[in-house]
């Protein structure tokens, strides 16, 4: 094999989940030896799925994979290891109570590795070679996120990987840690290793990669030399042309201030700022879109308003009940207090079944989860929720044998309808919906848009977190864009362009420039 043969070639890879969702469609791309390739794309563009096929977690439906010019069949993670392909997932595969060395030793034969002190020595050697910093004796639960990631990389290298795939490695890192990681990646590149880094952060792409391959909605768009690319050109390739969706957007007069969010700061479970000093207003009678790369703080924002997420001191969320001038502070109150104050926040969680509904219960019982307090002293009122379930079933055309069938058995779209239907039925003043159309077909999506618009007409403040920019621009009156936990601008849905929003999502600088201008 000569040096021209790519380390990995993928040819016409197609992968579908179920019959509807095509994650990758005819993707063909090459990874050269000794290069850093950035794989760029929006959420749901199929980056991770494509890479999971290289690491043996999924199997492609059709298409071929070549490693060093030879066709290979990767059926399990072990196959990938043996071919020298290692993937570092977003969720680390480490055992907390074991030391770094023990984690590296897991599943390996003592015959091949020697005793643990040999492994510890090898770890130190790898660290010295590439500039990692890790104590082989340290327990994983004492490690920072960055150290855990380092350990994952070391583990992969110890097992002889020549091709490393990193799935959004910087998502959990501080800027300093990111710099350190990049330095290490450059060292590994100089050593002849191939590195694929999955990302949607344009500045990182420009900083670290040699070439960029872009995926959009599962399709391969193209590969460019990083030296010839700009933020502008990459954004265009990533978001593509505007698609006319023809979603109605009724105009509402007399919008009234409903929520006033000031200096909202929240920490995630690692103690890192998930929301950083975010301030904006929400009006009744409008749909406010929240755009952003996933994990930019959308979850914390919604949960902070709902009272599920603790806000740091200095944060303020003021609520103005309809028709009243009096304000009430939501920060510091718990979910039921917020409810008792007369604030009806309806919440469609990102994870439909996990937080919103109980899978083993039928539609009627799931309705009751919202209204169980309204019953008598001893016995709950079962009739009202049953009627409501029947009404939702008829109005929204939920396909279910009957209202007592466990919702777990319903298809995704129908589960979503049940959830949205229930939230709307409680007649909210603020309706929050996160990814309300995720995984739904076109018709159901339009039903949901219509429901949201109905609420808007009634004067409800609708907050819609979405991932499809076309939908956000077509549906929302205003779009607030989050980038790395910061509010990077609020644009008017009527005049905004996809490029503008895309740029604000990926680049904090762009937001600053706009603010200055």
């Amino acid at each position, binding site marked *: 094999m000569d040096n021209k043969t790519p380390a990995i070639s993928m040819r016409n890879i197609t992968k579908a989940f179920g019959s509807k969702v095509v994650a990758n469609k005819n993707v063909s791309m090459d990874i050269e030896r000794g290069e850093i390739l950035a794989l760029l794309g929006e959420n749901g563009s199929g980056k991770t799925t494509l890479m999971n096929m290289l690491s043996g977690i999924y199997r492609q439906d059709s298409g071929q994979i070549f490693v060093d010019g030879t066709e290979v069949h990767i059926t399990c*993670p*072990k196959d990938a290891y043996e071919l020298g392909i290692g993937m570092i997932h977003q969720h680390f595969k*480490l*055992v907390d*109570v*074991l030391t770094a060395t*023990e984690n590296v*030793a*897991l*599943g390996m034969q003592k015959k091949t590795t020697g005793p643990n002190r040999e492994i510890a020595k090898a770890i130190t050697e790898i660290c010295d070679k590439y500039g990692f910093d890790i104590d082989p004796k340290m327990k994983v639960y004492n490690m920072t996120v960055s150290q855990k990631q380092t350990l994952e990389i070391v583990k992969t290298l110890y097992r002889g990987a020549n091709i490393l795939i990193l799935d959004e490695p910087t998502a959990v890192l501080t800027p300093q840690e990111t710099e350190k990681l990049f330095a290490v990646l450059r060292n590994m590149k100089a050593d002849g290793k191939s590195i694929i880094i999955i990302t949607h952060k344009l500045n990182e792409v420009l900083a670290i990669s040699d070439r960029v391959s872009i995926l959009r909605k599962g399709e391969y768009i193209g590969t460019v030399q990083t030296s010839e690319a700009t933020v502008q050109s990459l954004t265009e390739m990533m978001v593509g042309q505007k698609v006319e969706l023809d979603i109605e957007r009724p105009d509402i007069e007399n919008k009234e201030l409903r929520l006033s969010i000031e200096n909202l700061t929240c920490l995630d479970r690692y103690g890192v700022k998930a929301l950083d000093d975010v301030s904006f207003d929400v009006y009744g009678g409008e749909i406010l879109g929240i755009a952003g790369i996933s994990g930019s703080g959308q979850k914390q924002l919604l949960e902070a308003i709902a009272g599920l997420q603790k806000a740091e001191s200095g944060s303020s969320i003021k609520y103005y009940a309809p028709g009243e001038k009096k304000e009430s502070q939501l920060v510091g109150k718990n979910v039921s207090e917020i409810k008792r104050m007369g604030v009806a926040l309806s919440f469609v969680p990102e994870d439909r079944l996990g937080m919103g509904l109980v899978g083993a219960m039928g539609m009627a019982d799931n309705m009751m989860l919202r209204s169980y307090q309204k019953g008598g002293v001893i016995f709950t009122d079962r009739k009202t929720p049953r009627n409501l379930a029947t009404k939702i079933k008829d109005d929204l055309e939920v396909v279910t044998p009957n209202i007592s069938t466990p919702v777990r058995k319903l298809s995704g779209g129908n589960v979503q309808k049940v959830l949205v239907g229930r939230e709307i039925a409680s007649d909210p003043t603020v309706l929050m919906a996160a990814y309300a159309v995720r995984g739904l077909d076109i018709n159901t999506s339009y039903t949901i848009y219509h429901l949201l618009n109905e609420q808007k007409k009634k004067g409800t403040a609708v907050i819609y977190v979405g991932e499809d920019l076309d939908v956000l621009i077509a549906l929302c009156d205003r779009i607030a864009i989050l980038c790395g936990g910061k509010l990077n601008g609020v644009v008017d849905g009527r005049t905004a362009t996809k490029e503008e929003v895309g740029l604000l999502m990926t680049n904090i600088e762009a937001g600053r420039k706009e603010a200055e201008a």
Partner: protein
Amino acid sequence: MIAAFIHRAVMQGIPLLFGATGEIITEKSGNLNLGIPGVMYVGGISGVIGAFLYENSLPDKSQANGFLAIMIPLLACLLGSFLMGLLYSFLTTTLRANQNVTGLAITTFGVGLGNFFGGSLIKIVGADVPSISLSTTSRFFSATLPFAKDLGWFGEIFLSYGFLAYLAVIIAIIASLYLKRTRSGLNLRAVGENPATADAAGISVTKYKYTATCVGSMIAGLGGLYYVMDYVSGVWSNDGFGDRGWLAIALVIFTVWKPNFAIIGSILFGGLYIVHNYLNQFFPFIPVDMSTQELIKMAPYVVTVLVLIFNSMRNKRESQPPEALGLPYFREDR
């Protein structure tokens, strides 16, 4: 008197040590086998059946061969408790039944099975008392070193036990070294902590869960065998085993999942279990009536609760149960 107390405490502790060691091995694979009381019970009755068949096959009991008298009940016990472990593994690992429910069912089933066979044997023999005596075989199990009696208190505390007692300590030490020092022990711990990670590292989660649960059950079963053959000198009576199985599970928590701690812990538990009988001897000036004795009987459980509280407060990661304990593992979830 102190030596006699320690001697009794060790005798009490040995079944717990077997049970706890077996349960620790099992729990390290992420299987919370609450069926241990049943497994130990079946281990006991299997040994009794083995001993009964052997004794009845002899034309004259004085001809009993020491090797066979030990091996037959021992193998019968291992087989019985192995099958119980296999049943538990099949239900929880292969069929993914709820571990708690399965464990409790195994306990109920094991005790019922033991009482059924125990009752049957008693009927076959036609004994006047509701028990069956296998003193011939038992003699070999409880045989001690001949010179132990001549060594005074030293002999009484350290040398006056049947071979199973020493086996219990050896197994606990081996289990401890296995978990701490070997690669296979490391893999086992990984399976109990984080099966998805173990799976990704190429470790067969199912194989480890099955093996650990079955081996753990066999070790625990020996506790039942020791109880019948040595502790009560070969006299089986239904429900005689009492709550020792649950005490073994409490001991697992008490020793924070460390078999070497279980050696000391089991003797301590054994002591606490019988201390109410000795209070009048130790403190003749304090009158202890029957009801107080009943209160003192709960000492091992109180100590376990205190250890649990202490461990939760200290919140040291090494002292916590395996992270995936009690959870089924589905590969599709990764």
